[in-house]
């Protein structure tokens, strides 16, 4: 418990240096140490996907990683993806399609889909479903999330051209 390590990490473009316990989860570091509470914890068992962040551009579950493992890494959280007044393509599509209700799982889905689109501008519908398959939502029944994802893919592709 007492053993601490120096962590240098870039989150949403901002550099942080902290001494952290070895067992501190990346998710707890983001939420409690640097106050970015948009990343949510739905299970801390690696199943629900609510805690998804981008690590070096790849979507990962921040509850399954120690903060010290992210030493030197660049992390993007939901707070880094778009202001309320300036949503990205995924956020816009989810608003248009009523693809969120309580909003708890939403950040993970926005980050997951954004990560997919950033790595692959023209994902197949199987790839989209594969990404969504890693996120549990208890409110929407996924119907409108599928619609939003398809719309986000279309508008992202249009913006690329």
């Amino acid at each position, binding site marked *: 418990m007492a053993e601490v390590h120096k962590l240098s990490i870039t989150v949403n473009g901002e550099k942080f240096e902290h001494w952290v316990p070895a067992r501190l989860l990346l998710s707890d570091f983001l939420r409690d140490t640097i106050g970015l509470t948009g990343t949510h914890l739905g299970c801390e068992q690696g199943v629900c996907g609510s805690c998804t962040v981008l690590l070096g551009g790849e979507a990962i579950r921040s509850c399954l990683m120690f903060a010290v493992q992210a030493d030197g890494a660049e992390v993007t959280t939901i707070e880094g993806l778009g202001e309320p007044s300036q949503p990205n393509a995924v956020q816009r599509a989810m608003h248009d399609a*009523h693809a969120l209700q309580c909003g708890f799982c939403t950040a993970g889905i926005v980050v997951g889909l954004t990560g997919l689109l950033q790595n692959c501008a023209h994902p197949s519908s199987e790839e989209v479903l594969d990404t969504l398959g890693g996120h549990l939502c208890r409110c929407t029944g*996924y119907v409108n999330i599928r619609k939003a994802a398809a719309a986000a893919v279309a508008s992202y592709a249009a913006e690329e051209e």
Partner: protein
Amino acid sequence: MAVQARPKYVGGAVKRREDPRLLSGRGRYVADIQLPRMLHLAIVRSPMAHATISEIDATEALAEAGTVAVVTFKEIRDAVHPLPSIDLFPDSKPALHTALADGKVRYVGEPVAAVLATDAYAAEDAAELVGLDLEPLPVVLSIDDAVAAGAPVLYEEFGTNVANTIRQETGDVAAAFSAAAHVFEETFTIHRYGPVPMETRGVVAEFNATTGRLKVYSSTQFPHLLRAFIAGTLSLPESKVQVIAPDVGGGFGAKCEFYPEEVLAPLLAMRTGRPVRWVEDRREHLISTTQAREQKHKIKAAVDADGTITAVDVESWTNNGSCMFTLATTPASIFSAMLRGPYRIPNYRSVSHSVLSNKTPLAVYRGAGHPQAAFVMERTVDIIAGRLGIDRAELRRRNMLTSDELPSDRGTEIVLAGKVNYDSGDYPRCLSMALDLIGYEAFPARQREALRAGRYLGLGLCCFVEETAIGPFESAIVRVDGQGKVTVLTGCSPHGQGHVTALSQLVADEFEIPLGDITVLYGDTDLIPDGFGTFASRSAAIGGAAARKAAAKVKARAMQVASHLLEVDPADLEWADGEARVKGDPSASVSLAAAAQAATAMSAPLSEDFGFHLTGEDRFQPAGIAFSNAVHAVITEVDIRTGKVDIQKYVVVHDCGTVVNPIIVEGQVHGGVAQGIGGTLLEEFPYAPDGQPLATTFMDYLLPTVDDIPDIVIDHLETPTPLNPYGMKGAGEGGAVGAPGCIVNAIADALGPLGVHLTDDGPYSPAKVLGLVRRTQPGG
């Protein structure tokens, strides 16, 4: 009276005003709250299902760095009352629980000790070091075991595990049975699953020693009731308790309950003088947050030669787990009052028992008794239709109340909610619409053709009527500032239902102003003193009506102010586009902003009747329950080699009265259906014979994922309820009510050719379906 302007927003697919904040990670849930000097609470939970507590040893835990305190029942005995069960009617056994176990534990997960430490990791470490010496007692898990003669009893003082029994009777059941052409008897069982919101529970409590006031943030559906419960349990005046429900990540019934941690965190904040935070982890959630549904039913139906169901006689048991929770009797009560759904069935008797066992406490979950009722009734109807050789849609039609027969006093009653008097609706039309949308006529040919190719298709129907929009009241305060901007305070406590948008729509239409001029605030008992909360599909209907009534009151006051300012008779004024105008002279007008400016303390000389400020408060108290209704229809394919049930098409035709916002209503239907599908195909809380819960992670408790839920075809019928000035009924729960009955009917239809007879609601996992299929094979 001015001609009512055409609604601009109500009925429109207005995109949610809540979204931008939530989509960008700017929500604020209870676990996001950090306060200076905050302590972290961890709960030591019973590892045994039934035991007496011999000793609790905190020595090691207290020696751990960071530990501030370890508290057991002994230390709180004098400070706390048992947690109330509000639907426990007088003849019930008060099997109430305490915030920490009092000498005995009755389920795995029951709070035994509370550990406070300086951070959450340290609190969990210390909790693991608390030593428990428990003497095991015999465990009672199933309904049958709990009611068996000589069964071990959970509460010795009662001498029985039956906490209460509800009896309802109408008509002459005995005469109907002796005159019946056919009598059908079945036993149905419903398994245990539950709400399981994505956000677990959590509480942050802060005590201000100077004012003597507690501020409690909780992930709750009912802050005002919670205020009363915390105050009552800790013997504080309500004025000393403020409850705030911040953003709440789903509830579905699990959070309209009062939990031990909502007593412990406030109490420990008072004792330590430091803020106390408790956030449930998922394992705790799956063993200690209320679970739902588990029931058993013995039903007998009297039927005439033409398929008219003349009587139903039912005895049912609900497995309530270890105690009577906040809303513990409601599932049994709604089941017994609502079993007959849309069918006439003039003679009816129901006896419903709430039974105690060594499982996690059971309480309400989306639909609360309705899904069980719809499952039992709709399986029964299909079985009757099959045996009599009458088409199942036709049998339903013959027994269905028509709109001419409404209102209809059903002769039953729901605890807390009141008499069952169906107000309005067109049940046969909903059925016809659903049959058309699912392709009922063409289905038998499709089914036969598929069967020839070795594929098992089935179609299932589920018709139900649902108690929604219950009272006793909801409150609203509407305030207009000098810029004409409107603040709406509501006693509702939304957590995903989009009430900020829906209430804005209603109020914007009343004032005829843009949606953006309205701010809706909620979820703080200091902000609005009275409220009831969000559950029982009540908020848009009751809270929406209260908000619009309050707005109408404020508008009337603005007209009075305008009549004074313009020096015209009020009768010569009309309201249009957010202002009062002289009839025939639109240039002579007073805007909402001008009226608000005039109605301040500074602007004399308004008479005293106007009061000060353009503010109004109102309540809506419905004269009765509004009953929504729906028909669900589904086509499934059952793969008899893999046991997989595939949903090919899902149709919902529903009537929730006036629809304020169709996208929100459809979203509620989607979510409800998904939960019904989850419960029927995937989700279960199983227990080992010694009472150990076997679903403690999301690897064992299988929530539906994106691949499990099909697109859902929805059509609305809008029969405004006469019980609400704006016609709304409730829409939040129906999706979950219809799914189990219609999916199991479809599976039964698919497997009919194999002679499979289904009397339970699942979950129809591949393993279960394969087992059913194998038993029909030679040597199986």
